[in-house]
């Protein structure tokens, strides 16, 4: 039995096409501005002197991020009305009938996973396509990726398959929430901070 569902993201393979983001919006009927999964474009760098020559030294890669169904879901721990709860298989849900719309969880979550939904006047977020997954299917984002950059499954299994990395620039320190996330870093990720990279499309995410 699955005890903690998790996502795998391959930053080395992601082309930034946003198919995952669109598949999610489509499946969940999300209105404009509400993104349960979103793609950050991380970019930075410039010219670097090598010997006598100036050579370009840039970093550029993408991160596709949704709720990480954290093992320590600080969103739910902060919620004053216990509207965020974790199922036995690790999936974290928002109870929109209970949420008072105080938006405190949005501050608490360091992954910007919670999004305010003006239709229900509550927060909303990725529910891991639980109905599809319960029926033996696949989350819409994972199914949509043409690069096979996303995968899902039991956290322990994903770790065995892809390794232990769960943080790359500019994601927060994972010890804050223990995200159920496995990442294969892009080769530029290690230099991103030192090259003063930034999220280039912050208006979109």
């Amino acid at each position, binding site marked *: 039995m699955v005890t903690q569902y998790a996502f795998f993201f391959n930053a080395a393979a992601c082309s930034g096409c946003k198919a995952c983001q669109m598949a999610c919006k489509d499946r969940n009927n999300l209105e404009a501005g509400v*993104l349960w999964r*979103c793609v*950050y474009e991380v970019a930075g760098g410039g010219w670097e002197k090598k010997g006598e020559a100036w050579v370009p030294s840039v970093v550029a890669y993408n991160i596709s991020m949704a709720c990480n169904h954290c093992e320590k879901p*600080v969103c739910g*721990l*902060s*919620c*004053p*009305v*216990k509207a965020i709860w974790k199922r036995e298989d690790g999936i974290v849900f928002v109870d929109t009938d*209970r*949420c*008072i*719309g*105080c*938006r*405190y969880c949005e*501050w*608490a*979550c*360091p992954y*910007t996973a919670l999004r*305010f939904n003006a239709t229900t*006047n*509550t927060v909303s977020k990725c529910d891991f396509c639980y109905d599809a997954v319960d029926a033996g299917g696949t989350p819409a984002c994972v199914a949509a990726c043409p690069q096979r950059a996303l995968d899902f499954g039991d956290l322990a299994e994903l770790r065995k398959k892809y390794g232990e990395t769960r943080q790359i620039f*500019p*994601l*927060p320190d994972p010890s*804050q*929430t223990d995200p159920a996330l496995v990442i294969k870093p892009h080769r530029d990720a290690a230099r991103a901070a030192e090259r003063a990279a*930034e*999220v280039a499309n*912050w208006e*979109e*995410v």
Partner: protein
Amino acid sequence: MWKEWPLVAFTIAGQMAVGVFLMCGVPLALSVVFPASAGPPPDAATHGLRIALLALVLALLAVAALLSFFHLHHPFRARRVLTNLRTSWLSREIFFELGFMALVALGTLLTWRRPTNAGLAEAVLITAGFAGVLFLVSMSKLYMLQTVPSWNQAYTPLSFVMTALTLGAMATALLIDVSVGGGVKHRYLLNLSSFLVAVEIVISLLLAPGHGVFGPRTGPSLRPRAETHRLLHLGRLTLLAAGLFFIGLEAMARANNFIEMDLMAGGFRGAIGRGASLSLILAFVLVLASEVAGRFLFYGLLTRPGR
């Protein structure tokens, strides 16, 4: 940032209530518990003043509570807000606010009815003082989220306490002036206010860089820094400095009893209240405005991609 106006109003009103209470409620209580410092038995004017100060605290708390509803998108579900006292500082904040309010209300009632058992009112007021402090603590803890590095700093509790004390001292001085008249008697409140405003200026100057007002941002936010933050910071400092000037003027006028200065400082005295001077009112308005600017700045510090 601007959309957080209900929270700006809630936190400032709530902190001011605690501040006024600490400036008046606890001293009131102590003056009876330790009769040595009590002086002559209270006359009608002092009694009225006590009630007025406590009523001001209650009014501020009621306004804060009311305004906080504007922050919720489902206010009618708010009755469940105390559900998560075990892990949510938001639940705890509301718990302490309600507790503080209830205790102040009870204390006011007991003070008003002047029961034979005066000790009871005092005990209630002192307990209320503790509840008020816990209200401030929970308010700070609420924002000191590990996941929000720009809030998880000493500045959060420091600025909240400073807002409480500064506005508390100034509002108390103003109310005393209006209800029983100004004069040298309450000069200590003016001196205290000047000191607190000066401390606020120093704190905001020293700690602003750590908040990314000038340097790079703390934490995971990679959104470009907005010009508004710098302007709010400078605006707050200017307002504080102007406020300090006017309180200083008032304090000096009262200390020296300079007739000309008093006239200048209190040109409108009498027109507004029995003793409220224009310079004190101006100082209060300026400092209040600086707190509002500072609080908007505080909420503006939280930025993640997409915000």
